[in-house]
């Protein structure tokens, strides 16, 4: 599996062959607070880089989830729809959102690595 990459919209992405797994970062869940609702893209649909691909809602507000790369949705994680609290518990592990068959692996080149993202998250949250 590839190195984990991160987007400025606080999604993480890993790549295995041409299938990417995408979720939201721990930092994002800390900003959102208790997550109580999740909506995922439809399996078989195509999503475009930086387009919306889902929604999460905390007790306070709704936020869009974006996709950091383009592709076709090949799988979604129904368990976080049934129990959205899982997203707070294990955001960068079991609580992934969706898997994409990616269109263009070079789209990952623009994303941040862990150190860059941690720095970015720290700067933008102050």
């Amino acid at each position, binding site marked *: 599996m590839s190195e984990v990459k991160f987007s400025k919209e606080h999604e993480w992405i890993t790549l295995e062959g041409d299938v990417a797994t995408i979720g939201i970062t721990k930092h994002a869940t800390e900003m959102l*607070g*208790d997550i*109580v*609702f999740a909506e995922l893209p439809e399996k078989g649909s195509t999503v475009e880089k930086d387009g919306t691909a889902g*929604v999460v*809602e*905390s*007790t*306070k*507000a*709704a936020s869009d989830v974006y996709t950091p790369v383009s592709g076709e949705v090949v799988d979604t994680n129904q368990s976080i*729809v049934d129990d*959205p609290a899982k997203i707070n518990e294990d955001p960068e592990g079991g609580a992934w959102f969706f898997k994409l068959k990616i269109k263009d692996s070079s789209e990952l080149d623009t994303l941040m690595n862990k150190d860059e993202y941690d720095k970015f998250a720290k700067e933008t949250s102050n």
Partner: protein
Amino acid sequence: MEIKKTSLNKLHQSKHAKFVEFAGYEMPIQYGKGIIEEHKFTRSHSGIFDVSHMGQLFIYGDESLTEELEKIFPLDLKNLQQNCSKYSFLMNEDAGIYDDLIITKIEEGYLIILNAACKEKDFEILSNLLGKRFKMNLDNNRSLIAIQGPKSVEILNSIINGVDQLNFMTGNWFDSDNQKLFVTRSGYTGEDGFEISISNDKAEKFVENLIEKGAQLIGLGARDTLRLEAGLCLYGHELDINKTPVEANLRWAISKSRLSNGGFIGSKKIMNQMQDGASQIRVGIKPEGRLIAREKTKIFKDTDKQIGEITSGTFGPSVNGPIAMGYVDKEFSKVDTKILLEVRGKKYPANICALPFYKKSYVKGVN
């Protein structure tokens, strides 16, 4: 304008509060553990709320003040006993609500608790209505602390002996630590609890004392989920200048004895609406599934007929599901009416339901 801070601001900081601006004040929205934990802790133990941003208006006077206030509020104040509180409204001539409030008859006159965002304007309106006959003090030297939840009576009574003898919606002056506190048994969560009016310089120590006894600070986020589960209105959401108490389904708060003769501001409109009904009315709404419908969500009957709008909506931690309140056309206001909510361009099923979502546990019969 510079943001205002309550006398507990430093304490909030030390408890890792996340702050928001609310009605010109820097207020804690939540602390470290998050809204759901805080909500559940209040329902099972005892939560402390800093509500010092709210207005504490003392109006001093005797029976003549009671007479004047009856021209303003839809209450039978003549027969209200000393130290008893009533929920009421400050209205305009069309019964539009300037503010909702709690008024308590005290020995010196009346104490009125006002919403933070409305208090200055309320003071102006009441000053104009009452003229200069009565001394009025919107007291900025006092903080207001609420303590809510089943353990609150035990905790508070260990600091202020005798509060356990108060009935719901009554209050009294108590002496504690060489100071006079005004304590009412009331609140905004659906739980048993108290609100304590205390001088600013004593507030922090008092709250630290409550924390030592096992209560915890709770932010405005959980205050909102708690009040929504209890079916209680929030000014600026369920209530505003374009809504009347009848439309807000709060006719219980209007004293029956005042309805026959009127004589309070807005009485004509209220009496008409009591007879003919209002065209829209506040209801409880439960979305099916886990969908959350926020304020301003449009409500439909069938697919194309809009019948109303949501005024508050969130996830109810104790109900363990989404809940909302809103206004719908009266013909669709019956419990179990199926409706549709438009969220992010799609329509989702929901049902009109009875309020509250969560059973209240007020203590009514102590004495």
